[in-house]
């Protein structure tokens, strides 16, 4: 069985395992929906007062909010294995992964699909739908392609951050909140156009952790809105690649981590 098929086979098994706890699934999903719904309410309240912020309207910001949260909730749903990875290293259960003839990253990634994350996903889909309707988007084939490409890049970027966070567990037993701050801060930051931010933060979000590349630039292209910062619209077709590249870097770091673990056994 190929790695790809095995991945979905293991994900399927994790779903069957979760189905043993149906009540818990529904309660968590609803709680999650309410929780993230409140977040958008705060943005709405802001715009209800000011109508628009520095040339950005509520539907435009809602479009940012919707896309980044759709991507984040997908990445987050697939992230269980890396999320709990520190525990696996400390308990020594990572050894059980190493004795199987398959890639370690594949096995960890396929550990569990968290279905309860549909709460956040459906909420962001609603916001996204509303924004698209308000903005009269075209739904042409190339528009949809760019949307898909944008989401893919964003999912890859967030997943890369999760992998990096897990990788740190190979070197330290402390939980490093730094990466969490970047991940969750990144989601927050990506909910607004980076044009609203100070230059240093914009640079960090473009060249450091390239959230703007998978979010701001392609969304400008999707909305057909000229960049107030002056970048041409075609940039948005290329920049989601940065998310893929970031994931590549993260997986490389992961392999270094595994090598470190196997030589120190800690």
């Amino acid at each position, binding site marked *: 069985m190929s790695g790809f098929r095995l991945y979905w086979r*293991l994900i399927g098994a994790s779903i069957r395992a979760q189905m043993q706890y149906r009540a818990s699934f529904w309660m968590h999903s609803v709680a999650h929906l309410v929780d993230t719904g409140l977040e958008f309410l705060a943005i709405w309240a802001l715009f209800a007062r000011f109508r628009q912020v520095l040339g950005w309207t509520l539907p435009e910001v809602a479009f940012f909010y919707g896309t980044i949260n759709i991507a984040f909730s997908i990445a987050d749903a697939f992230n269980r294995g890396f999320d709990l990875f520190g525990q696996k290293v400390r308990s020594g*259960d990572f050894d059980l992964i190493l004795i199987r003839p*398959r890639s370690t990253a594949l096995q960890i990634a396929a550990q569990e699909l968290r279905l309860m994350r549909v709460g956040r996903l459906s909420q962001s889909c609603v916001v996204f739908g509303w924004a698209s309707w308000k903005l009269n988007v075209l739904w042409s084939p190339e528009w949809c392609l760019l949307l898909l490409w944008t989401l893919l890049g964003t999912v890859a970027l967030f997943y890369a951050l999760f992998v990096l966070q897990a990788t740190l567990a190979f070197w330290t037993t402390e939980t490093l909140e730094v990466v969490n701050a970047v991940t969750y801060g990144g989601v927050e930051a990506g909910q607004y156009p980076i044009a609203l931010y100070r230059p240093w933060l914009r640079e960090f979000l473009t060249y450091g952790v390239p959230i703007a590349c998978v979010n701001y630039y392609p969304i400008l292209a999707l909305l057909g809105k000229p960049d107030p910062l002056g970048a041409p619209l075609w940039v948005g077709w290329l920049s989601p690649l940065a998310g893929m590249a970031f994931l590549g870097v993260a997986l490389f770091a992961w392999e270094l981590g595994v090598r470190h673990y196997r030589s120190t056994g800690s």
Partner: protein
Amino acid sequence: MSQIVVEGLTKTYQIAEREPGPWGAVRGLFRRRYRRVVAVRDVSFSVESGELIGYVGPNGAGKSTTIKILAGILVPDSGRCRVLGRVPWRERVAHTARIGVVFGQRTQLWWDLPVIESFELLRDIYRVPETVYRKHRDELVDRLELSPLLDTPVRQLSLGQRMRCDLAAALLHGPAVLFLDEPTIGLDAASKLAVRDFLWEINRERNVTILLTTHDMDDIEALCSRVIVIADGEVFYDGSLEGLRARVTNERRLIVDLEDPGLPLRVEGAVEIQREGHRRVLSFDPTKTPTPLLIADVTAKYPVRDLFVENPPIEEIVAQLYRDRER
């Protein structure tokens, strides 16, 4: 050709030491102090196909480290090692496809899924062809009496049941070599016997080479023709169980059940070391006092209900070995 060859294997761990006090953690972020602990030092042995070997030693002696290196989990600092012709840590994926590993304290089964689903997932992970999988599965289910357990979620199994399932899981892909780290730990007597019988069978009938670590000397006595004893990371005995005994002591024990519980038992060339009701335990050295002569002597002097000769328990032998070594 030997299936497992280990030469001069050495592995050191670096353990980060945290300085005490509230500033210790902060200081630790910048400057770490490490303590070096030698887990295994210059360990060498080789194993032929079909051997069943007990790997014995106190806690922290380096047993698990050796197993982890042989299983391809850890990379040693120095030394050479080949299992089935491969260097375990260099070709992890190819290597692990040909071996089976069981950790007594952990399960590789899926906690919330029925046992049979775990088996099917492992079939796909190990790329076992369906026909081969069926053959192995049916045989293992039959030998380990797993059929009533197959539809039970793993979390509902008792420890003994789980261990039987874990043994099957480690053998579904038909490995030629099986490593077991404490396979009987925490099991009740019946489960221990079941595990031992099974290991004995697959070793004899399927010619699976087995290396197991254990604290339970009964495991060793029941199963292993060869014992490797390790302490402080170094091998200091490798050979037969009888040889291990002979190296420490020639002592044998004659257990006598007397007709009259009140009588003291005194014979030449043997010392009474235990007295309990009708039973007397005599300790003697058969090279000085031949066993037949001693028995003849005892039965001539006392009315005897029953008597038999025993070796001192292997726990005592190994404990004595460690004491001798420390001296």
